[in-house]
Each structure stands twice: as C-alpha cells, then as structure tokens.
C-alpha cells in the first residue's frame, strides 16, 4: 500500500530534507513517504543490528584521517544516524579489542550504517518518482 504522497514527485529541497531525515532516523524517510511497512522494518532491523554490534563489543571508530581504513569505518558507522549519536552520548562503543566478538561487533555496526545509506538512496529514488 502506498500513500498518495509517495507517488508524487517531491520538490528538490524536500527531497534532500527527506534524505536527511531518512539518514538520521532509519526508516523515517519511508514512513514519511507513506511506505509504513518498509519504514518500520528498516527502523527495527537497522537499529537492532547496530545495538547488536555494540553488545558484541564493537567499536565506534574515530575520524582518524591518518588511518584511512579507520576513517572509512567511522564514516560507515555514522551512516546509521541517530543511534550513532545516542551511543556516543551514552559512552558505549569503545570496543574491546581482546574480546572474541570484537570483529563481529564491528561488522554489525559498519553494515548497519552502510545499509542505512542504501535506504537513504531508496528514499531519494522514491521521492524523485523513479520507484
């Protein structure tokens, strides 16, 4: 089921606002466009994935430009939006390098961020009337 709002081509500024909202709250862009089922699935799945990564002792990487892979990981982490900032404010995500689940946790956190970036691109396509 699609709401009429989702079928109209959005104006350019609204499209970018939609993308920003979709990035900040996973699934919010789809919810805004009336695609409730997709929005709720993204909100739950991506947030859970991120939390799971933190629970597995994953690390929120710093923006260290001297280590390009760390910087890229930081960008991927940031992709999940609001949960990233909440985790930072709560002081979690320091990561425990010696934990056996450390790399698994990082994978969950990074993948959640990258998947949310794909979700943002989907919102952009829908808003532009391509889907």
């Amino acid at each position, binding site marked *: 089921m699609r709401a009429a709002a989702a079928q109209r081509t959005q104006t350019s500024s609204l499209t970018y606002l939609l993308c920003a909202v979709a990035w900040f709250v996973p699934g919010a862009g789809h919810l805004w466009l009336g695609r409730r089922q997709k929005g709720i699935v993204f909100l739950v799945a991506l947030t859970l994935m991120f939390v799971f990564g933190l629970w597995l002792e994953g690390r929120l990487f710093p923006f260290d430009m001297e280590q390009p892979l760390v910087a890229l990981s930081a960008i991927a982490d940031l992709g999940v939006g609001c949960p990233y900032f909440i985790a930072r404010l709560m002081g979690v995500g320091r990561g425990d390098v010696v934990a056996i689940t450390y790399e698994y946790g990082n994978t969950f956190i990074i*993948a959640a961020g990258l998947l949310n970036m794909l979700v943002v691109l989907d919102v952009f396509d829908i808003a532009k009337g391509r889907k």
Partner: protein
Amino acid sequence: MIVFSLFVSIVFAVLTRDDPKEQIVFGARLFGGFVGAGILIGWLLYPLPL
C-alpha cells in the same frame, strides 16, 4: 553469521521488493544463499593453514 545474514536478508528483501510475498521469498533465498555460501567457503578454507 546466521544473525547477520538474517538482518541483511531482511533489509535487502524489503528494500528491493514491494510485494510482501515477494519480500518473503526473496529474503528466504538470500538468507539461504548467505548461510550456504558461508558454510561452503568455511569448508573450502578448512585445509588452508592459519
């Protein structure tokens, strides 16, 4: 691996398919593919030294 495959399959299926039935079928295929490929690659790497 199974939990990771589950999350990624759900997101990809919902992202690329609009019909709920198609989402379930595609998600299940994707999940099976991820888990199957993981087990297969694991066994292929088994004889290699660490």
